[in-house]
């Protein structure tokens, strides 16, 4: 924002006019000791927990421990110049970050300050980093899908908007890759993405930002960085900062996706802080509230229920105002809110007709409904949704395990908090199965409701085939000769496993995923060698593009695979199967 010279003098004039205001009253304290980014401060009576306090030299800290006669403060910066006896001032402000559209496309630190050299963040909004999660009344169950663009995930462990799905695995198993692909796949989906990098190397984060920029994903993404070189307090608050930025969109009726990469490192930073604050250590030396550290963060992921109102024509609903009531004196919330609002409208438009409808049954009821709808249209009432309702915040936390041990403290905690988990395994990764998803033990507990119907129809048989394959493959290792049925099962399983492989940065549209999985589960791949399948997949998409491009649109919009679509798909796949030449083995 550029200021003109006269604007500047205007500002200065105003400031000078107000200059002789009352003296500044602040509460202060004195530094008792300082070290390892933690200061103990004497005084500061009345200070609140997580309040920001100011040290000399414009250095800020956050109050973490309130003790009998001193407080423990985590310092957000270089604290070498802070010494015993220094004065610490209260600010009265709880730690907060800037939020809003201005953050989209930016790279910021845990305090929301830009670190991408693109100038200041111009937003009037700020929000506290610790906000209570929405209550049960404000929530609705997950129903819209959040497509990751990864075949293995969208088919077998679908994710819904508002869900919390854990990405867990050893180091270097492609955890970040899954997260980044998911962000790339949100292009044009009206989902604002937040990638929070905690305790990672600067170079790794720079690579991720590069990739996101290269794939055009920074247009709707914010990256929050608290790298390995940053102080523990910043690594500790970074996920909350990112979450707060996402909540701004959730609470204004839009959709957000937050990725916390990774929470193991956040827990380690928190353990460091806690030990320095002399909080009692528990299992694995983590403090007792490390569960709450993650549960309160992940609880903030939610699908917000829609709010519907009956209002007089021309009345605009005050956005996001939960005290507002419609013309029928009600606010309709929950899964049936819209229908309830319509009924409220009927009642206002035609009270008698509404009574008759309530009493009626069967076909009569249907007929009356039509009449009432017309009446409502003719009346001066309309049904409207609060545009700030119905938003969502999806969370994909990442946890790193040691040698696949999911029974360690932090993994078990986060597994129990989330609505499911994707297990990435080093063995699978090295054997070339990438994404290295172990589909046997990965689950999505709520996403099924959000999966589009066509995918649901074919995912069932995929899951069963794969399960049988896993069971048999274990036995087949010892068997020398196998009966034909078993052989067939094994062949099918090997092909299905093969088509779930997917490269990085090539998320696939859901309709294409459906086509290839349909081909696999219906046996269209059985005649071809496993090694030719990646080429098969690519050429098959091209073939359908050329022959019946409309089918993609049809699968997407019809959502379910009806007989017509099945027929068309089968025809296309049969024809393509005749044309496709797998490499000849020599």
């Amino acid at each position, binding site marked *: 924002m550029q200021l003109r010279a006269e604007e500047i003098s205007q*500002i*200065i004039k105003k*400031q000078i006019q107000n*200059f002789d205001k009352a*003296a*500044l*009253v*602040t*509460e*202060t*304290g004195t530094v*008792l000791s300082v070290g390892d980014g933690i200061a103990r401060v*004497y*005084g*500061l*009576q*009345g200070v609140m927990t997580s309040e920001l306090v100011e040290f000399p030299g414009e250095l800020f800290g956050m109050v973490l421990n309130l*003790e*009998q*006669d*001193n407080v423990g403060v985590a310092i957000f910066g270089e604290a070498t110049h802070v010494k015993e006896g220094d004065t610490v*001032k209260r600010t009265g402000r709880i730690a907060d970050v800037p939020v809003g559209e201005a953050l989209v496309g930016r790279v910021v630190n845990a305090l929301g300050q830009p670190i991408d050299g693109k100038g200041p963040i111009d937003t009037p909004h700020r929000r506290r980093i610790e906000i209570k999660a929405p209550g049960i009344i404000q929530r609705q169950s997950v129903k819209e899908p959040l497509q990751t663009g990864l075949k293995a995930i969208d088919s077998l462990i679908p994710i819904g908007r508002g869900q919390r799905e854990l990405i867990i695995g050893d180091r270097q198993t492609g955890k970040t890759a899954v997260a980044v692909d998911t962000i790339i796949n949100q292009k044009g989906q009206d989902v604002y993405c937040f990638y929070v990098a905690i305790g990672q190397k600067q170079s790794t984060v720079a690579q991720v930002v590069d990739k996101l920029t290269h794939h055009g994903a920074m247009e709707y993404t914010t990256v929050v960085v608290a790298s390995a070189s940053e102080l523990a307090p910043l690594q500790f608050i970074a996920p909350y900062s990112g979450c707060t930025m996402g909540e701004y969109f959730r609470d204004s009726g839009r959709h957000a996706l937050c990725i916390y990469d990774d929470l193991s490192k956040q827990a380690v930073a928190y353990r460091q802080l806690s030990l320095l604050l*002399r909080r009692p250590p528990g299992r694995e030396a983590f403090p007792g509230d490390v569960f709450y550290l993650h549960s309160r963060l992940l609880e903030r992921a939610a699908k917000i229920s829609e709010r519907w109102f009956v209002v007089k024509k021309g009345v605009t609903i005050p956005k996001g105002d939960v005290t507002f009531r419609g013309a029928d004196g009600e606010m309709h919330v929950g899964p049936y809110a819209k229908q309830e609002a319509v009924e409220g409208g009927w009642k206002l438009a035609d009270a008698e007709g509404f009574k008759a409808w309530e009493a009626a049954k069967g076909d009569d009821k249907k007929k009356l409904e039509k009449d009432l709808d017309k009446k409502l249209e003719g009346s001066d009432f309309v049904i409207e949704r609060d545009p700030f309702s119905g938003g969502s915040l999806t969370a994909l936390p990442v946890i790193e395990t040691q040698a696949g041990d999911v029974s360690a403290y932090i993994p078990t905690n986060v597994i129990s908090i989330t609505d499911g988990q994707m297990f990435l395994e080093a063995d699978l990764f090295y054997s070339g199965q990438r994404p290295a998803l172990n589909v046997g033990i990965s689950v999505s507990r709520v996403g099924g409701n959000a999966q589009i119907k066509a995918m649901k129809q074919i995912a069932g048989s995929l899951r069963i085939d794969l399960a049988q394959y896993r069971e048999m493959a274990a036995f087949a290792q010892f068997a020398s000769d196998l009966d034909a049925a078993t052989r067939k099962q094994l062949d099918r399983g090997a092909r299905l496993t093969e088509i779930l492989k997917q490269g990085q940065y090539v998320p696939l549209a859901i309709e294409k995923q459906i086509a290839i999985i349909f081909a696999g589960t219906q046996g269209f791949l059985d005649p071809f060698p496993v090694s030719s399948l990646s080429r098969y997949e690519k050429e098959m998409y091209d073939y359908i593009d050329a022959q019946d491009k409309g089918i993609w649109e049809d699968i997407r919009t019809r959502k379910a695979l009806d007989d017509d679509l099945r027929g068309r798909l089968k025809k296309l796949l049969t024809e393509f199967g005749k044309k496709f030449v797998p490499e000849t083995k020599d």
Partner: protein
Amino acid sequence: MSIETVASRYAHALLEIGVETNSLQPITEQMAELAKAYQTSAELRAVISNPLVSLADREAVLTDICAKMGVLPVVKNTLRMLVQRKRMAILPAMSRSLRKLADEHAKVVRAEVSSAKALSDDYVRRLQSEIEKLTGRKVLLERKVDPALIAGVVTRVGDLVIDGSLRTRLVDLKAQLLSS
């Protein structure tokens, strides 16, 4: 237990002794002086808390210091006990805690007024009575001169700072101009 908790227990005990023997004020002051000596002299700390020096030698050092400073026997006993129990590190916290308790007991508050130039006695008297009205307690006012304030007065009562200095306002003005 944290140092502060331990220190406040010792301080409570000393407070009671002080009240009973009617010598709270000298005890508080002497403890403060000793704490200051302990904090500022690295040599003293190195000897007093050093397990390699025998307890008798350490007590001898203490006795000498106490004699020099002319402290009350109860203060000397307190120190000897701290040395014996290896608790010397709490001395500063204990003195701080005792001062707070003693102030509360005597119903006084400590205040400090800093100004760019020395203030007139009349002004200080008026200020003192204002603070006394505000807090409902007797005020022990300390004066300080700090030319860096440029003009105006900064008053500190306990944790509360009432800053009417020109310096602070200029700093504020700068911050506001930069942010808008």
